[in-house]
């Protein structure tokens, strides 16, 4: 791909500056419609949420360090697991991806900004209020939501506390924010690609986000629907999920997982895009099988609508339905496998170097694949009867979400940080961050497989004595992983304040429009579209 950037002439430049200059102080952030500012805010917000959700995980691990109740009450423990899940999914992982999309998509497709900048501002600024509501609900009499992030009815309807109303309201706001963000991404990619940026020339990060955005607008409204039903069941006398009024609690799970399973892919498809950007750069070799990567992403997205009931094998479905969902789920392994094979083939006979982004991307491939393997095991229905709702499942989805989604986000931050700040991050500290995270995350999550196979159910604050040693071990891993993330904050602050100046290309093997603009990226880029030949 060769790029010609036409420098805007001075007069044009002046005009633009005039009507959209960079204000200072708090109003810059409150009123900004600039995709880079909004991207930064999303990323900072996600980091703060990551630490709040992480603190809750530390409370959970502290209580589980030993059998017996030591630090918190079971009811508070349930609030911690619930809010930890909600914050990490909706507050950390999703906003972090949206932040990366805001920063990078316009720069990758040669657009001056997102297509709908004012909506962009809104979709960010309603988010802090959603989480403020959720967090404040923890201080209500009776506490916050305590029914798990999956809020199964009737635990979340007839048997929940009054914080449920706040929970529903908060989820509605999160949903609206995500939907607005997704519409923005689709319109931007559809209409604002630079001349010559054809569909099959788009970087994979753009492709994966494009598909993710479609998943978002299709399933977030379903989530909004199901929380609304929970609200009306609890307060307005409907009986969607109440058998006494002709409803069915299992219906809740069908609707929830119709949202929930695509949601899982919403949190992993952009990660595939990130890894597909980083591996070629540090292998100094073009991505292997670009077209098959695009098709694999699309097929995963389509399949994700047909597998929801694999979360519900124990609810008592007839055999034919169980078989259908088992086969469909197993089928997802095929396109996912294609992706992993393509990454390995990209590395094959490249000329690799191992800077921090590459290290996180390599760890992603191995550890995400381990999560994929346990996912395949969970798909096998008869075996799932033994795995379901145990720590085996907890291990599985943390491999996919922590060493998958979060590792990819961290890799992306290291990868693009020099472009954002104009400074190189501290490589030594970054390597420390990587190795500490890698070791501790495996101490934390790997033993959970064994604990689950031995029969420890998830979401319990207290357990039988046989699980004691492993849980103490897991907790230590958890504390170490939590501490390791402080190194990350240190690296980020250090890099924002200064350091070795980054070149425009930053990485020797980096290709793409974002590396054509100066480092740090100016406030306005590509006001005149580049021409891609």
């Amino acid at each position, binding site marked *: 791909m060769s790029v010609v950037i036409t420098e805007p002439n001075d007069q044009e430049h002046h005009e633009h500056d005039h009507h959209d200059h960079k204000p200072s102080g708090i109003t810059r952030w409150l009123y900004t419609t600039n995709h880079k500012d909004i991207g930064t805010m999303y990323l900072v917000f996600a980091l703060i949420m990551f630490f709040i959700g992480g603190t809750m995980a530390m409370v959970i691990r502290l209580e589980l360090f030993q059998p017996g109740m030591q630090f918190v009450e079971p009811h508070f423990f349930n609030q911690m697991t619930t809010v930890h899940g909600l914050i990490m999914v909706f507050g950390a992982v999703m906003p972090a991806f949206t932040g990366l999309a805001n920063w990078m998509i316009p720069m990758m497709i040669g657009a001056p900004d997102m*297509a*709908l900048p004012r909506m962009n501002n809104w979709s960010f600024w309603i988010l802090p209020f959603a989480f403020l509501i959720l967090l404040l609900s923890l201080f209500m009499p009776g506490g916050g939501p305590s029914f798990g992030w999956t809020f199964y009815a009737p635990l979340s309807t007839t048997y929940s506390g009054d914080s449920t109303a706040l929970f529903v309201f908060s989820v509605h706001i999160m949903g609206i924010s995500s*939907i607005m963000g997704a*519409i923005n991404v*689709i*319109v931007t990619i*559809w*209409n604002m690609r630079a001349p010559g940026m054809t569909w099959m020339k788009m970087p994979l990060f753009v492709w994966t986000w494009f598909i993710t955005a479609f998943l978002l*607008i*299709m*399933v*977030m*409204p*379903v*989530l*909004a*629907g*199901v929380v609304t*039903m929970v609200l009306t069941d609890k307060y307005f*006398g409907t009986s*969607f999920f109440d*058998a*006494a*009024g*002709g409803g*069915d609690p*299992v*219906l809740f799970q*069908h*609707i929830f997982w*119709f*949202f929930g399973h695509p949601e899982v892919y919403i949190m992993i498809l952009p990660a595939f895009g990130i890894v597909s950007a980083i591996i070629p750069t540090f292998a100094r070799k073009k991505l292997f099988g670009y077209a098959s990567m695009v098709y694999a992403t699309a097929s995963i997205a389509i399949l994700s609508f047909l597998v929801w009931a694999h979360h519900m094998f124990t609810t*008592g*479905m*007839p055999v*034919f*339905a169980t078989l259908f969902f088992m086969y469909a789920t197993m089928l997802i392994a095929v396109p996912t496998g294609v992706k992993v094979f393509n990454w390995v083939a990209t590395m094959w006979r490249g000329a690799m170097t191992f800077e921090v982004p590459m290290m996180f991307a390599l760890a992603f491939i191995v550890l995400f694949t381990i999560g994929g393997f346990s996912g395949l095991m969970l798909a096998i229905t008869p075996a799932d009867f033994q795995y379901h709702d145990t720590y085996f499942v907890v291990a599985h989805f943390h491999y996919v979400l922590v060493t998958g989604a979060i590792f990819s986000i961290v890799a992306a931050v290291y990868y693009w940080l020099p472009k954002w700040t104009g400074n190189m991050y501290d490589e030594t500290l970054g390597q420390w961050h990587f190795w500490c995270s890698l070791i501790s995350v495996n101490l934390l999550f790997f033993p959970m497989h064994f604990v689950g196979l031995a029969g420890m159910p998830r979401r319990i604050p207290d357990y039988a004595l046989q699980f004691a040693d492993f849980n103490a071990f897991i907790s230590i891993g958890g504390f170490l992983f939590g501490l390791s993330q402080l190194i990350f904050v240190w690296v980020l602050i250090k890099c924002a304040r200064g350091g070795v100046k980054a070149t425009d290309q930053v990485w020797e093997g980096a290709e793409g429009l974002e590396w054509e603009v100066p480092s740090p990226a100016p406030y306005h880029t590509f006001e005149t579209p580049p021409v891609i030949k």
Partner: protein
Amino acid sequence: MAQNKPLIGKLILVTLAMFGFGFALVPLYDVFCDLTGINGKTAAVAATGDNAIVDTSREITIEFLARPNKDMPWVFKPEVHSMKVHPGEIHIMNYLAENPTGQMIVGQAVPSVSPGQAALYFNKIECFCFSQQQLAGGKDMLMPLQFYVDPALPAQFNTITLNYTLYDVTQAWADQQPLQDNIGE
């Protein structure tokens, strides 16, 4: 920017349609259950037993379970625990209900059949579960169920378990009758 508008319109339409789809899943699920017998839901309307041919070569065991839910004070029992029937034969089975409290209570029985797929072949001509049942304090009554098993019941099923969970719906009943004097209370 004008070129964005049609696209945004379409995307918002998709969003709204999917919001509607979430709610449409509720009736769709019921239709799906009726077709496949997921969850052992039986039909909520009466069947006619006119044209069924009795198949005397097969015998099916029907088990009757009755359970008042934990906050429902009625005594609620089937007359017999189980009976053997030929497919196509029409039978009547009585359930005994007794309200030991001092107040009128309205009950709603919710049927569930196991195995789930057999629910499709369990037909009720008359059932107390079709409507809410009122019972004054200290009174008892017999509640009839008239049913037959469809002769098309697949061969692998030889036992059908019918469970009724009885719920106290007095509150919901009272909410729906604002004009009526609440006689029992």
